């Protein structure tokens, strides 16, 4: 039991480090604007860096070489990401496209389509988004209502998607639609790739409860797509969607925001009625719990990497990560805010301690508990796929989609 790379892993890390050292500095966006995510400068830097990586086999390390990938292992990909994060050039714009959408295209599209899209996506020239969630289908993605009706060699699409990450800067998307409402819900879905610049596609930012607007609604009004844009068979959309979701990138990064060290720092300089908060027994007990949970996550990731290193495929066990991280973020940020007492109400970064870090994460935390699988769905996944407990009783399984009760 140790934390050392195997000789092959160490050699790869050394190679990656040397390459990053030589190339990363020129691709850091350092201007004030360039440091702000979603600014044109930030995006330009990200794209240039992605091109550089693609040219050197570091863009999609696990993809086959004939598609321009690195022909490497999942663990090499993790190692590269770790080293990349250290030099501060990891941008998030391409994660969903290269992690989920393009692999789906590669699995289901014809040769011509693949040839057209894989290269530009890998180089960061084109960005992809994933259009699955709907107002009436969040956890229950198979309840999608966005409707596609065949018209000759084309399909006409109307409806709405929601919580689409990156729709505002994406060039293409993969879209899950209802093609047959007369069969049960899983059987009437079909997947297409679409052009996000089509005038029939409208992207509207969501004004989130946190105050920010990182996600979008996407509306389709008589969007016409060719039948050749279909990924997989008509009615096979759910099978295709499962492939997309299985390609979800191995989560190796920790969550951002204040951690146990941040709140220790706050506690050293903040008073309770009995002196510094760091001396408060109740706080110290909680701090110990947070440390233990954070370390538990870190070492669980190490165990996942070990499985990769031994050539095993990590299973859905990694679902525990987000449950712990999101809840801990919420509890810890509230503890920080309450520690600040009356002052805790302030969100102004120039007034609130630590640039309002705790207030910001307090407002962001509810979203983290929902995004990418709610706590409840993740617990179902653990219960069913890890522990082997039965699935929920499904009252909609054998009912035609159009006859399903929908409520509001």
């Amino acid at each position, binding site marked *: *039991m*140790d*934390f*050392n*790379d*195997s000789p092959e*892993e160490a050699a790869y890390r050394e190679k990656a480090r040397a390459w990053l050292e030589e190339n990363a500095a020129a691709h850091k966006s350092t201007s004030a604007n360039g440091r702000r995510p979603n600014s044109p400068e930030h995006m330009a830097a990200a794209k240039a860096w992605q091109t550089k990586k693609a040219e050197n086999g570091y863009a999609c390390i696990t993809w086959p070489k004939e598609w321009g990938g690195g022909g490497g292992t999942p*663990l090499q990909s993790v190692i590269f990401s770790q080293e990349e994060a250290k030099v501060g050039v990891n941008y998030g714009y391409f994660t969903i496209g290269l992690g989920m959408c393009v692999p789906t295209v590669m699995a289901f599209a014809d040769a011509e389509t693949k040839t057209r899209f894989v290269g530009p996506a890998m180089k960061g020239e084109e960005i992809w988004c994933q259009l699955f969630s709907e107002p009436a289908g969040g956890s229950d993605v198979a309840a999608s209502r966005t409707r596609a009706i065949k018209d000759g060699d084309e399909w006409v699409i109307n409806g709405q998607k929601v919580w689409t990450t990156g729709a505002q800067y994406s060039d293409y998307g993969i879209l899950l639609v209802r093609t047959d409402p007369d069969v049960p819900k899983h059987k009437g879905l079909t997947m297409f790739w679409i052009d996000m610049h089509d005038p029939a596609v409208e992207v509207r930012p969501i004004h989130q409860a946190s105050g920010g607007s990182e996600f979008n609604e996407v509306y389709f009004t008589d969007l016409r797509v060719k039948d050749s844009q279909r990924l997989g068979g008509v009615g096979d959309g759910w099978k295709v969607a499962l492939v997309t979701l299985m390609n979800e990138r191995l989560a190796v990064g920790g969550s951002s925001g204040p951690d*146990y*060290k941040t709140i*220790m720092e706050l506690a050293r300089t903040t008073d309770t009625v009995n002196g510094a908060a*760091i001396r408060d*027994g109740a706080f*110290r*007990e909680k*701090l*110990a*719990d947070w*440390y*233990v*949970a954070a*370390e*538990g*996550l*870190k*070492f*669980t990731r*190490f*165990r996942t*990497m*070990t*499985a*990769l*290193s*031994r050539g095993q495929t990590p299973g859905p*066990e990694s679902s*525990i990560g987000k*449950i*712990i991280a999101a809840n801990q973020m919420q509890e810890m940020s509230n503890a920080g805010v309450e520690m600040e007492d009356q002052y805790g109400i302030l969100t102004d970064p120039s007034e609130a301690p630590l640039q309002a870090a705790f207030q910001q994460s307090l407002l962001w935390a509810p979203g983290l508990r929902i995004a990418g699988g709610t706590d*409840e769905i*993740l*617990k*179902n996944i*653990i*219960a*069913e796929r*890890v*522990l*082997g*407990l*039965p*699935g*929920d*009783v499904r009252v909609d399984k054998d009912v035609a989609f159009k006859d399903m009760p929908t409520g509001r």
Partner: protein
Amino acid sequence: MNFDYSDDQKFLKGEARKFLEARCGSAVVRGVLNNEDVSFDKDLWKGVAEQGWLGAAIAEEHGGLGLGHIELCAIAEEMGRVAAPIPFASTVYFVAEAIAAAGTDEQKADLLPKIAAGELIGCYATSEGPGALTPGAVKCKVEGGKLSGVKIPVTDGDCADIAIVLANEAGRPGLFLVDLKGGGVTVETLKSLDPTRGVARLTFKDAPARALGAAGEGFNITEQVFDRAAVLLSFEQVGGADRCLEMAKEYALERYAFGRVIASYQAIKHKLADMYVKNEVARSNAYYGAWALNTNAPELPVAASAARIAGSEAYWFASKENIQTHGGMGFTWEVDCHLYYRRSRQLALVAGGPKVWKERLVTQLERRNAA
């Protein structure tokens, strides 16, 4: 990255599981639970000694197998899984580790081979009354090589041959080896939350005592020993918590209510998922503890504290929610749930409770941040 048992260690763990499942079913645990006059299962103790596990981490020159501490962790996990009713932890995690860490060459050569052979049962006596162990709480005294005072409760004090006792000599805390079969010692068996691990009051009156480790170092050595024991105990906790989750799962899959198995209700599924999450957090922290223990890393105090806190929390949660999942059956003497509920308390308290370890962890973190 190599953060898991090796294949050899997995093999050893698998053999331990087979052996313990065959030799330590719940009937064996209940044999001790249901008989006040029996403090441990002698056949199992003999079998474990024959396997060499008492000396797994004891050097070959002292009659042990000379394996590493990761191997001992693997065995501990399996011991915890079956709630083995033997003085394994007291003898191996506390006493053997203390002698190996602080004993003279002569003490090691005298005692470790006997421990490895299963001829000597040990206990580690620190507590004298309710509340956390502090220097002011130690009243036991040694004068002219004679120990006087009372230690209560002493886990496995009712069956041990020797005790390591924390006592003051000339106003300074030290550790002392006392032969419990010799003169000046009165042993009284007491009732406890977990009768499958015996507990005693040891009353010393001018009992002959030999120093273990340097004078004045009693608390420092105890801290080191408790750190090492905490990691090993955390593996027993992980093993027990895993078994509770398995029991809850097996029962939920066969128990019908309202026309279907209760494992199909989300209230039960999410409860079991919560158990799984806590068990994995405990396992990952225990692994880090194992690494620190095996390499004598400077991180050991932090790693041991985290392993102990996570292990105590996971086992507590799993053992109480296992009973809850079993419903009324879980509250009967005949169903095994309470064996684990009881053992979870014994393991969480034996080397100091979670509050003490949380304080120790935060103190270490402050020190680390200041450095």
